C-alpha cells in the first residue's frame, strides 16, 4: 500500500501560468471587442466630422439656411432637405402614433387569447423586417397612383388650406406618399415598445382602478397609459429616429425636388435622399458638403435616439 500512496498525487494541481495567462487574455480580448463596438459610434462621429470640415469652414452656419445645391458653382445649402426630413417624419408620426398606440392597446389587453396575440405581435414585427427598398418599389407601383387620385380630391376640396395648397405632381410623388410609407415602417417600433411598456406595468394598478369602479377604458386612459407614459414617449422617439434617417423608400417616393413648399402634396427631398442621390457621383467640395449634411442628420438622430434610449431604459428599470 505504501507504493500507492507514493504514486498518488494531489488531486488539484495549481494552474499552469499558460492557463492563467490564457484566461486573463481572454477576458481582456472580450473587453477589447466590447469597447470596439462602443467605439464604432465615436469613430463614426470622427470620420463624418472630419469629412465635413472643409464645407463647415466654407459655409458655416449659413449651410442650414441656404437652399442652393449648385455643383457647378460649388454653392451648397441644406435647408430644403432639413425641412423635408422633419416634415416627412412628422407626417409619418401623425399616422403612426394613433394607430401604433391602438395596436399596442389591442395587444396588451385581453381581447384575444394569448396564442393569437403572439401571432399578431409577430406579424406587426414583420412589417419592420421588410426591406426599405421593397416598400419604395411597392409605393411607386401601388400607393402613389392611389394617393395621386386622393391627393387630387383633397386639393379640389381643401386647396385653400396651405398644407394642401398644390395639386399632386404629374408623377404623384411627394411628401404625403413618402410620409405614409414611413408611417408603415415605424409603426412596429411604436406598437412593440409601447406594448412592452404597457404589459410590464404591475397588475395591481389595473386591479385598484377596476376595484374603484373604473371601466376598462377609464382604467386605460386614466391609469395605465399615464403610468406607461415615459415608455410610450420613448417608443415614439425611437420611431422618430428611424423616420428621420430612413432612406430608400423616401428617396423613391418623395420626388426629390430641391424646394420648400408648405403643401404636403408637393414633392420635396430629405437629407437621406440627397445623400442617396448625389453621393456616388460627387467629388471635391460637394463630398464635403454632403458629409456636412450627413453630420447634421447624424446629430439629430443621435440626439433623438439618446433621449429615447434614456426613456426606454427608465421603463425597463421599474
Amino acid at each position, binding site marked *: 500500500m505504501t507504493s500507492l500512496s507514493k504514486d498518488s498525487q494531489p488531486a488539484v494541481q495549481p494552474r499552469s501560468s499558460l492557463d492563467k495567462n490564457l*484566461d486573463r487574455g481572454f477576458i481582456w*480580448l*472580450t473587453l477589447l*471587442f*466590447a469597447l*470596439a*463596438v*462602443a467605439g464604432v*459610434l465615436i*469613430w*463614426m462621429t470622427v*470620420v*463624418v466630422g472630419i*469629412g465635413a470640415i472643409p464645407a463647415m469652414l466654407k459655409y458655416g452656419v449659413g449651410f442650414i439656411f441656404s437652399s442652393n445645391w449648385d455643383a457647378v458653382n460649388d454653392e451648397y445649402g441644406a435647408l430644403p432637405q432639413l425641412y423635408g426630413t422633419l416634415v416627412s417624419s412628422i407626417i409619418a408620426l401623425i399616422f403612426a402614433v*394613433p*394607430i401604433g*398606440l*391602438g*395596436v399596442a*392597446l*389591442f395587444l396588451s*389587453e385581453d*381581447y384575444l387569447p394569448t396564442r393569437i396575440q403572439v401571432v*399578431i405581435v409577430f406579424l*406587426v*414585427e414583420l*412589417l419592420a*423586417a*421588410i*426591406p426599405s*427598398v*421593397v*416598400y*419604395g*418599389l*411597392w409605393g*411607386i407601383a401601388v400607393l402613389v397612383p392611389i394617393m395621386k387620385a386622393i391627393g387630387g380630391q383633397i386639393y379640389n376640396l381643401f386647396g385653400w388650406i396651405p398644407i394642401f395648397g398644390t395639386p399632386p405632381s404629374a408623377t404623384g410623388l411627394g411628401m404625403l406618399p413618402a410620409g405614409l410609407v414611413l408611417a408603415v415602417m415605424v409603426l412596429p417600433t411604436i406598437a412593440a415598445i409601447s406594448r412592452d411598456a404597457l404589459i410590464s406595468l404591475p397588475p395591481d394598478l389595473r386591479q385598484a382602478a377596476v376595484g374603484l369602479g373604473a*371601466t*376598462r377604458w377609464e382604467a386605460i386612459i386614466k391609469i395605465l397609459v399615464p403610468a406607461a407614459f415615459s415608455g410610450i414617449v420613448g417608443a415614439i422617439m*425611437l420611431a422618430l*429616429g428611424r423616420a*428621420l*434617417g430612413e*432612406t430608400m423608400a423616401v*428617396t*423613391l417616393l418623395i420626388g426629390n425636388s430641391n424646394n420648400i413648399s408648405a403643401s404636403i402634396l408637393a414633392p420635396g427631398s430629405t437629407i*437621406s435622399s440627397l*445623400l*442617396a442621390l448625389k*453621393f*456616388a457621383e460627387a467629388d471635391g467640395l460637394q463630398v464635403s458638403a454632403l*458629409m456636412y449634411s*450627413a453630420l447634421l*442628420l*447624424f446629430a439629430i*438622430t*443621435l440626439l433623438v*435616439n439618446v433621449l*429615447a*434610449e434614456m426613456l426606454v431604459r427608465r421603463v425597463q428599470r421599474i
Partner: protein
Amino acid sequence: MNNDEFNADLLKRSPGSPRTLFGILMTGLTFLSAGIALLPLVAVIGFVIAKGGSRIKLGVFTELPPTAYQVDGGGFGNAIQGTIILVVIAALISIPIGVLAAVYLTEFGKGTKLADWIRFFTNVLSGVPSIIVGVFAYGVIVLNLKNLGIGNGYSTFAGGFALSILMLPIIVRATEESLKLVPPEVRQAAVGLGATNFQTVSWVVLPAALPAIITGTTLAIARAAGETAPLLFTALFSQYYLPLSEKGPNALYEPTASLAVLVYNFATRPFENQKELAWAASLILVLMVLLTSIISRIATSRKVY
C-alpha cells in the same frame, strides 16, 4: 340601512350609459387600428408575390441584368453572387466581434458601469441611420483605398464593411439575450469542476447558447441582405459577375452588384422588363426575411436548456 331597499340594478352596467358606449367605441378603434396595421403587410407581400412570382424562372438566377432595350430575358445572377459575398464579408467581421463583446457584457462585465455604458452605446449605434453608416464606410474604406491607389475605392469590401457595422449591434444584442438564457447553475458547475473562465465560456456557456445565437445571427444576416442605402456609394453596382476566378481575393476591390441596389436601380426605370426583375428580386429579399423570421420564431419558442 335596510336591506330591502338595496337596489341591485345600480350595480349593473347600463348598456346605454356614456361610459359603456365610450368603451365600446374605443375597443372598436383598437380593433380597427390592428386591422389597418396589418393591411400594408398583406398588401406588400401580396403584390411582391403576385408581380415577382411570375418572373422567377431558372434563368433569373444565372443570367446578367438586361440592358434597357432588351425586351425579354435577363436575370440577376451577379446580384445574387454579390449579395452573398457582401453578407459573408459582413458576417466574418461582425460575428466574432459581436459575440465576444456580448460575452464580456454578460459574463465578465455584468453589472459594472462600463458594461452599462457599452450597452448604451450599442443601442444608440443600432439607431444610426443606415445611410450614415454608408457615409462612414465611404470615409473609412473608399477614400483610403482611393488614396492607396487601389482602383477608385468603390469596392465589395467597403460594402461588406458597411453591412458589418449595421449587423454588429443586432448580433451583440441577440447573443446577449441568448447568453442570459443559460442558467447560472451551468456556469457554477463548470467553475466547480475547476474550469477557468475561458474554458467555462468556450466549452460550456457558448455551446449551450449556440442555437439561439445562430438564430439571432441568421436574422441579422437576412436584414443586412435587404439593406440598400449603405451600398449605394460603397459597393455601387456592377453589370457583371465579380471576377473571382480570374483575380481571386483582389476582386473584392471592385464594385459589385447586389439584389437590394438592383431593386432600387430598376424601380424607377421605364422599361417593363427591368421593372419585372425589380419585383422578382424583391420577392427573393422578402422571402428570405420572412422565412428566417418564421424559422427563428419557431426555433426560439422551444427553449430547452
